[in-house]
């Protein structure tokens, strides 16, 4: 009984200490699966955009630390907070929010396959309270970019986590594009970030370029793949521009910060113009920018084609 009393006392204490919201225009609850640069940049872009529009927003940010049980509890927590809008970052957190939260608008970001994940009925007409912005990479353009660097490539490697739904969808499209271009796609799958080094090594000698899609697991251990690329003079491309900053050769992206901003614009329409999320089509990123990294090119022994350098938006030294 004494333990029970301690427990009740603790509950009461927390209830009392929970301060009520101050004078803010809106409250937004955020549910994010893990913390990593791309997902954090999405959140930041979202917040920055709304701030620039002059909206006073109080944020409740929750991170599930990769745990789906916690993602469920966060969805419950958000029901309590009763925000004006929910921002769900990545597929599992978006699904947990979509399942529980039925009458608050939910914007999902960093989700690749909205229909496959069951979040919306169709990309054009989501139908319920969930819509958002897809991070489906334009694989055709990425393939063309790689072939511009390595025109006579016979095979291209890709490293991804076969347990990440987003990555599996991406690689499916990459496979189709490779087939169209007559290039062989060598796939190396991993289960956790410590497998990236070995996966990259397994591609050495078989491929003329390596592609890292926007895969949460691989991106956390990007440096391992870079090391292999440097040692074996293999051009390493990435699906996102944040990774170019970390040392991949080039990307046509797809900047997660901009993605967050565009999602922020969707939030603005819902909050200020009372747009109905069920009638807002799932958006794709409007601005794609070409990033190249000169230092990476040197380390990988690659010459950047003039045509690429000319139209690059960002050239990192």
């Amino acid at each position, binding site marked *: 009984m004494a333990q029970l009393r301690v427990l009740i006392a603790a509950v009461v204490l927390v209830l009392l200490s*929970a301060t009520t919201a101050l004078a803010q225009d809106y409250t937004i609850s955020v549910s994010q699966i893990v*913390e990593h640069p791309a997902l954090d940049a999405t959140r930041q872009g979202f917040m920055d955009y709304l701030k620039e529009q002059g909206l006073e927003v109080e944020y409740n940010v929750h991170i599930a630390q990769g*745990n789906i049980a916690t993602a*469920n*509890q966060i969805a419950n927590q958000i029901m*309590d907070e009763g925000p004006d809008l929910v921002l769900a970052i990545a597929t599992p957190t978006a*699904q947990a929010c979509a399942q*529980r939260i039925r009458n608050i608008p939910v914007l999902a970001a960093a989700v690749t396959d909205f229909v*496959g994940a069951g979040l919306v009925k169709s990309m054009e007409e989501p139908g319920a309270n969930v819509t958002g912005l897809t991070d489906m990479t334009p694989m055709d353009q990425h393939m063309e970019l790689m072939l511009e660097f390595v025109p006579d490539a016979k095979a291209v490697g890709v490293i991804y986590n076969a347990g990440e739904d987003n990555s599996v969808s991406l690689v499916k499209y990459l496979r189709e594009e490779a087939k169209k271009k007559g290039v062989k796609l060598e796939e190396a799958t991993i289960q956790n970030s410590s497998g990236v080094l070995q996966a990259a090594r397994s591609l050495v000698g078989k491929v003329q370029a390596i592609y890292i899609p926007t895969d949460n697991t691989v991106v956390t251990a990007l440096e391992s793949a870079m090391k292999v690329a440097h040692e074996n003079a293999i051009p390493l491309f990435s699906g996102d521009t944040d990774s170019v900053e970390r040392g991949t050769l080039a990307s046509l992206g797809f900047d997660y910060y901009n993605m967050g901003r565009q999602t922020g614009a969707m939030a603005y329409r819902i909050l200020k113009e009372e747009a109905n999320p069920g009638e807002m089509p799932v958006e794709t990123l409007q601005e794609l920018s070409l990033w190249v990294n000169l230092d990476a090119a040197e380390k990988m022994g690659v010459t950047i084609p003039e045509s690429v350098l000319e139209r690059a938006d960002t050239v990192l030294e």
Partner: protein
Amino acid sequence: MSYYAFIGALEQGFVYGLMVLGVYLTFRVLEFPDLTVDGSLPLGAAVASVSITAGVPPYLAIFLAMGAGFLAGMVTGILNTKFKILHLLASILTMIALYSVNIRIMGRPNMTLLGKPTVLDPLEAMGMAPSLAPLALFGTIAVVIVCLLIWFLHTEWGQSMLATGDNRQMITSQGVNTHIVIILGVGLSNSLVALSGALVCQSQGAADVNMGVGTIVAGLASVIVGETVFGHRGVIRPLIAALLGSIVYRLAIALALGLELGAFSVTPSDLNLITAVLVVIALVSPQIKSKVLSRANS
């Protein structure tokens, strides 16, 4: 912590409580630390979601999931008893194999159940609020399972399971085949874990191959918290304690999620740390209490 968070924590406590009961059976009754659960939880979810998507009624789907979990547990048991592989290693092998198996079953790493029929539909059709229906259903299932386990542990089979964990040599000398007891015991445990997974995916809206990560940690923490707070003597009490331990564990996470400590700001990345600290407090508080009491008495 307020209404939804509290209700949600209870609900998660019950639904993962089924998994905790499974962990209790192996870890405490059989003295068999079983890591299969990290794979059998998503296995249950995978089988349930594929079945439901294929048109199997949700209530039948959870039995199929339990069957799959039972088989997975049996594999671990057979690897341990018949092939003489250390129990920890045997269970790890099954666990990593299940990762691939689960992707095979679903055909992809994540399978949605949003918009599909679930076990919760009949309750919601009766007019129960979507936030209360899972609590009512999972609570009922958990209580029924606890009752069934209490009955089971008093049968001859249950007694030989208890005896196998207690003193294997003694029970072998009495002519009980401990291999069969272990194989079926680990199977039973994992069928409960798979049941938990089958229900979790229906309340979460999707089965995901990564949903099992950390299951054993949550399971062991719940078992130990339950024992410490609610006692561990006899056969009936520890079973109830395991279920309650699961609820306390989820309440701890709900507390950590809503924690505000005035000027000291807790960042979202502190969640795991805070949860661990709260569990440690639950674990050590009875010891401190008994020390204080014994000093006061002397």
